[in-house]
């Protein structure tokens, strides 16, 4: 009898791990610290080593004749900020998509949204000579928006809605067609091809300052909206019926989320080219850290994504120094195993 009671106590279902608000807040602070360190490393590491002092004086007491200070102001800091914004944008776009589609494999890269933006930009650049960077951002949004609507719309036909396989296949298929359009268009112009081949792998290198100055407002706006979506995504996670019963405007939430995703995906792609896997993997890490509450998943994703993107960028610079490995390539190599692990997991997170 006692033995039975003891056994019963043993098999008692484990209570869901409760994560206290204080703990999660502290965790976020730690991540913030890590992010600061990574940003510092990203600014200091490179072909030309610089110290903290140089960074400080580059902004307080700028000396244009100093090569080191110019490198910092013109290259390293803009590059790091770009990595911060693009990483956060892509990660949040992935988290939003996973929340709104309730699909663990939704990601702006896998779904072809980034490729849509890329195709839009390439076609616009090729067809209308001398298009400005600021216009190309808008074309990127349009491409990303169209790709989002097509992929999600097509994948969600049918009884069971947008299942992971349908979504991934629709994304892969649409990406493939966009890729062939993009390549076909660029074949005719050697110069464009030369520029495109760097941009198309996804990289933070190039003209940082103009790119940053043209895309940051969109990225910041998108990130801000994304961070505010936590409550709505929590509602959607309960299912549409329950969310409606709780007084949520489900349709409005969907529209806002998809617009935000197109904004983030388009701007990030316009800045760095199509980068995959950040939006897919990081929200899962965040979910593992802080549980299913989107009010925490979103800020954690916001902090984790730039950490990973910047680490990949630094890694790419260090590995093959003095040349560099594009960040998209590093992320592709690191992200593919993560994606496969995710697919192989028996209990692919139910969202």
């Amino acid at each position, binding site marked *: 009898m006692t033995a039975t009671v003891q056994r019963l106590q043993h098999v008692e279902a484990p209570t869901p791990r409760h994560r206290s608000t204080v703990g999660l807040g502290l965790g976020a602070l730690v991540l913030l610290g890590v992010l600061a360190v990574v940003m510092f490393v990203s600014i200091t590491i490179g072909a030309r080593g610089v110290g903290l002092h140089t960074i400080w004086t580059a902004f307080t007491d700028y000396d244009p004749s100093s090569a080191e200070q110019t490198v910092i102001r013109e290259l390293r800091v803009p590059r790091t900020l770009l990595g911060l914004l693009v990483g956060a944008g892509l990660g949040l776009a992935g988290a939003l998509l996973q929340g709104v589609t309730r699909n663990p494999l939704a990601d702006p890269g896998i779904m072809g949204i980034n490729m849509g933006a890329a195709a839009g930009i390439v076609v616009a650049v090729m067809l209308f000579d001398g298009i400005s960077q600021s216009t190309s951002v808008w074309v990127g949004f349009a491409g990303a928006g169209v790709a989002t609507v097509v992929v999600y719309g*097509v994948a969600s*036909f049918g009884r069971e809605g947008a299942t992971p396989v349908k979504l991934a296949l629709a994304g892969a298929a649409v990406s493939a067609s966009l890729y062939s359009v993009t*390549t076909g268009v660029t074949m005719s112009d050697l110069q464009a091809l030369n520029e495109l081949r760097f941009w198309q792998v996804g990289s933070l290198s190039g003209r940082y300052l103009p790119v940053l100055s043209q895309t940051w407002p969109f990225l910041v706006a998108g990130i801000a909206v994304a961070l505010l979506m936590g409550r709505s995504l929590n509602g959607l996670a309960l299912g549409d019926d329950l969310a409606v019963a709780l007084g949520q405007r489900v349709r409005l939430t969907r529209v806002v989320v998809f617009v935000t995703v197109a904004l983030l995906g388009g701007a990030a792609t316009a800045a760095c080219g199509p980068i995959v896997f950040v939006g897919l993997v990081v929200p899962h890490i965040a979910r593992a850290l802080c549980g299913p509450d989107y009010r925490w998943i979103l800020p954690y994703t916001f902090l984790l994504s730039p950490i990973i993107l910047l680490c990949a960028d630094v890694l790419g610079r260090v590995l093959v120094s003095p040349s560099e490995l594009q960040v998209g390539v590093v992320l592709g190599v690191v992200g593919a195993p993560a994606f496969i692990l995710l697919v192989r997991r028996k209990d692919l997170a139910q969202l």
Partner: protein
Amino acid sequence: MSIVETPLRRAVRAQRRAHRARTTTITLVLVAVTFALFVGTMMIGSYVLSPWEVIGSAFRLTDDPSVDFIVLDLRLPTAATALGSGLALGVAGLVFQRLLANPLASPDFVGISGGASLFAVSAILFTGWGAVTTSAMALLGALLASIAIYLLAWRGGITGYRFILVGIGLSQLFTALTGYVIARADLNDAREAMTWLVGSVGSAGPFELRTLLVAVAVLLPVAFVLSRRLGALELGDDAASALGVRVERSRLGLLALSVVLVALATAAAGPLSFVALIAGPIAVRLVGNAASLPAAAFVGAIIVLTADLVAQHALPVALPTGVVTGAVGAPYLIWLLATVNREGRGG
């Protein structure tokens, strides 16, 4: 108890016979169209030939040096590449789609072409040993990619679901690496590599072409013979083993066969997008599932031959074949996605 000839039995038999006759007719029509296009692409060009001149020269019936030069040296390699790669891609695509039970699971998307592309592009950019290496590497890449996908998706068996998703993940990896290789290269090499990546039937060397044609001649009949097992596998693993089919072995054999076909077609013509995807569903629509493999082969050939005609002659600038298949494939794809998902077969 003897079998009684009931009206129902008679009706069923008549129905079956009509279906078989229809299938045969349609397949024969497809063969005829393929042949007509094959001859047609060799007629058109800066010097137009008559069909009889082309047939006479291509099949060595007549002996006219000037016609022979145009047909045998200039136009036949391209036409034969288009024919061979179309046949191979059509069959391979349909085998994949039926094995993985998903009309969208063509080798283009699940990483096979991606692996072939990565290896071939690396060969173009780093070795400079010419076309033979490129094809051999494309073959190697496709084989390695498919082995990797098979092993990574293995967990006490293969499900279409895991195979597709692992394949998509790997194909993203291959895309990233291919992009990196191209970005590193010298501009002219990069251009050559990107041309190869779009896919063109005009670029095959004699070696790849011969390999492709031999493989098609050997493997296509094998595929047609194995298509009965494919039908059994489609009933589900349990039903198939109850019918006496060795499930994993048949699946592995069929996959290997289509991977080799895709790899050789890719080696000869580059990764022609969408042919493998489109040919299967069209063939199934025409003749139904049971007899669809031969039909898919010829639909594939018709698609590539037509795309080649359009790419070379109908457009103001001559484009690589892959641009045309890509542009035609995209809208069809959207429509296909929409219909299969509405019917609940999308996965």
